[in-house]
């Protein structure tokens, strides 16, 4: 049985602004990667936290069957949210301790549903610190953002018609 890992990362240019997310899924037999899958995506107007959440969601939603997986994120927001804060939010009907609506509740609920299908071990690592899996997830997130980064010189004139 291989071990499954997901490296996830989000990127955002401006907050809010164009953003992207990236996922590297690996099946490993010891140190050997036996299978690998990448996913990336982006949106025109979003935030860094939303992209970090969407990366984790996309990783878990992409798994065909119930899987025991280690999900590695450099987002303390995602890691702490899903391993600690979410229990209180659910008790409070998706409100924070001071009764305010939870931010990004649509994505937190989706993450909650996605992780319920699997056995997830959540791991936080420091971002941009040379971890190969995290670096590749970061590259994918930036690639996912690329179509939405303003490029004034060659932006097609679609907006006027929209």
């Amino acid at each position, binding site marked *: 049985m291989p071990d499954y890992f997901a490296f996830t990362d989000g990127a955002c240019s401006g907050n809010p602004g164009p953003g992207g997310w990236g996922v590297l899924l690996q099946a490993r037999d010891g140190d050997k990667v*036996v*299978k*690998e*899958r*990448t*996913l*990336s*995506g*982006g*949106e*025109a107007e979003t935030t860094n936290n939303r992209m970090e959440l969407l990366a984790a969601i*996309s990783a878990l*939603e*992409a798994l065909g069957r119930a899987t025991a997986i280690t999900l590695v994120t450099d987002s303390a927001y995602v890691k702490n949210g899903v391993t600690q804060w979410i229990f209180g939010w659910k008790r409070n009907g998706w409100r924070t301790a001071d009764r305010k609506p939870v931010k990004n509740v649509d994505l937190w609920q989706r993450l909650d549903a996605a992780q319920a299908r699997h056995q997830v071990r959540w791991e936080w690592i420091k971002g941009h610190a040379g971890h190969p899996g995290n670096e590749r997830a970061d590259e994918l997130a930036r*690639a*996912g953002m690329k*179509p*939405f980064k303003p490029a004034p010189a060659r932006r*097609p004139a*679609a*907006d006027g*018609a*929209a």
Partner: protein
Amino acid sequence: MTGDERTIAAYEAHVGSYADRFATAEPGVHLKAFIAALPPSAHVLDLGCGPGTASAFLRAAGHRPDPVDATPAMVALANARHALGARVGTFDDIAALAAYDGVWANFSLLHAPRDRFPVHLAALHRALKPRGLFHIGMKLGAGEARDALDRFYCYYGREELLALLAAAGFAPGQVREGRERGLAGTEDPFIVVQSHA
């Protein structure tokens, strides 16, 4: 125009196995995102509906699908399984004007010839209401090919596809890409773009 005869013949010959391979109990990630972004009771063109799986999920979500496929056996199967009112039509038959709230073109337009693809995108833009939702799924790559079943495929790069969408008047809202590498090498990189007319 009648669509690519060899591609249609391939689907006619494999209609049963194709339908079973894509049968699922719940909508996939991309269809879920599409459904979530539609207005209530949306009128949706399901272009290249195949056995009608997506249209059945759309209807279950309270929408009004209009499933169309160029392969008569697929249309018959869609109607037999789900009574969807699916109809036979090719990409060249898209003539509606501001009629749809959404278009679901999930890995179907990859069968269109390269020189016709921009024409089809323009026709879909006209068929959508203003700000209508457009989902397109395509395989990433370059050139054209026929697969082992004799189906014709046309491949595009990401920038190329986004430029063609923009030229047809679509502003991309969400882009999603994926690729997989197993022991057998790279498998079918794909791109899915959700945009508004």
